[in-house]
């Protein structure tokens, strides 16, 4: 990086970047500020930016009136459960494809990718009917299952790209020293794979948390995660902006923070390694 950079250049690009960044972030910031207003201040015209009476009562009301914790718990169970199960199935599969590839491995990988390309509406009817007949509508187990299957290809692909980067020489050395497959797995592979496993886990948790096709169509109340809970604010009588903002802030804050940690893995995971 020996290119000459004038200080004027730095100031101009800094100002422009901050301006655009601020504009893109504004809807989230505005929602955050609104969540601390009274309902009256939330509708005020001209809008009150910082000088209003700050209050946290919306957060308490959201919990009281619509049982936020129940839906947050559903989100955690559904996103966490589907991610963990997907990992349990995907780790062995990705391990085997990365370390003992066969002639068909590439075809298998691309075939798995192609299952992700099927639009969910294409199978909405049969899934809905199967779920109705098996009593899985509005059940956490049902949502865990469908989100797990939906994200499985991404999980396998991400793990595969991480496992590929573990140098084969190390495995070979371990084998030469007489390590069994079990020991090789525990002492050599696992420590090297942990960063990849962690970011795969995080990214897929985020994707499952925000999934809003199956959750909206297959759950109503009992198993409804936050995506469905927030959607209930779209009815006219639910239009309390300050409370909507408080509920929304609670629903997205943990995920945005997780997302900030995993932004690089996002590129890797969602492009299936096509952009590095």
């Amino acid at each position: 990086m020996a290119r000459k950079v004038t200080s004027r250049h730095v100031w101009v690009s800094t100002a422009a970047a901050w301006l655009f960044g601020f504009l893109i972030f504004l809807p989230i910031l505005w929602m955050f500020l609104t969540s601390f207003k009274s309902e009256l201040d939330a509708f005020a015209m001209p809008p009150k930016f910082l000088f209003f009476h700050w209050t946290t009562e919306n957060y308490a009301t959201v919990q009281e009136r619509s049982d936020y914790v129940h839906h947050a718990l559903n989100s955690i169970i559904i996103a966490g459960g589907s991610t963990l199960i997907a990992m349990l199935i995907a780790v062995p599969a990705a391990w085997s494809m990365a370390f003992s590839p066969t002639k068909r491995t590439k075809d298998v990988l691309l075939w798995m990718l192609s299952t992700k390309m099927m639009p969910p509406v294409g199978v909405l009817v049969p899934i809905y009917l199967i779920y109705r007949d098996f009593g899985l509508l509005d059940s956490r187990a049902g949502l865990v299952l469908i989100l797990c299957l939906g994200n499985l290809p991404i999980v396998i692909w991400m793990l595969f790209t991480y496992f590929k980067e573990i140098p084969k020489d190390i495995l070979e050395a371990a084998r030469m020293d007489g390590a069994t497959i079990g020991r090789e797995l525990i002492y050599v592979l696992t420590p090297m794979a942990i960063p990849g496993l962690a970011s795969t886990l995080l990214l897929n948790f985020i994707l499952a948390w925000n999934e809003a096709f199956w959750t909206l169509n297959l759950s109503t109340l009992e198993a409804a995660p936050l995506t469905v809970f927030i959607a209930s604010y779209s009815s006219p009588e639910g239009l309390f902006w300050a409370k909507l903002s408080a509920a929304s802030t609670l629903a997205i804050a943990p995920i945005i923070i997780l997302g900030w940690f995993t932004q690089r893995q996002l590129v890797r995971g969602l492009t299936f390694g096509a952009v590095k």
Partner: protein
Amino acid sequence: MTTQQVIATQQTQVMATEQTQVLGRALLSPAVVLLFIWMIVPLAMTIYFSTLHYTLMDSENWSFVGLENFRYFLTDPAFLTSLRNTLVLVGSVLAITILLGTPLALLLDQPVIGRSVVRLMVIAPFFVMPTVSALVWKNLLMHPVSGLFAWISNLFGVTPIDWFNDAPMLAVILIVAWQWLPFATLILLTALQSQDEEQKEAAEMDGASALSTFIYLTLPHLARPITVVVLIETIFLLTVFAEIFVTTGGGPGLQTTNIAFLIYSQALIQFDVGNASAGGLVAVVIANIVAFFLVRIIGRNLEV
């Protein structure tokens, strides 16, 4: 493949004794079997249902009707309208995210004070769940009386737009584009950071202007990531659902109904299983055309 990689691959193949191959297959099969069932069973059922006259309101009376549902679905004026809406939505969001995402990525690739903070602000919308972003935009920003946009229009003495009555499709496009702009920007930025710095320096030393460096070096470098962004976004944008579900419900009239929402309303509002299944298959075919190109691109640089 470099020679080293070839040697490494050969070594692994030698190492892959019969025992590890059996083990490998055993480890792979649960994932393959599950994905196979997940792909084939619902799809087969959709194909079967698409040949039936079958509604949930009158589920006792069903009959085989052949391709009648397809004829009905494809000649329904609602299909043509929603197909057009789908294409408008996908096309506009692609255009906005790439035309804004490219300069934004170039900007973030410059020396910027506090770049990591700006990056965090730019990437944030992608992690907001679709129902939240749709409701926040619809109410807090786009409300014709108390929204932030209305206030800005009033500052300039312009009558505020009643977004969801006067320009509902544009409103949906803006919401979805805001959600996908970070994705395009982040991928293009990642690609820019892998660009050969020395090449750019050499061009600069030879007196190339910033513009011609961009056109002859950077743009060709970005061609592939842009293709990937287009294909991946298209796959997700073809089935935009939550944003329409919570803001317009497909209306007014059919103005914001896309194919995904049309099928949803036939299946779970009108309970017409046969017709919705036929529509579902049409959606599968459309998505597969896009997926074909994406799988080819990804497959080309997949080294196993």
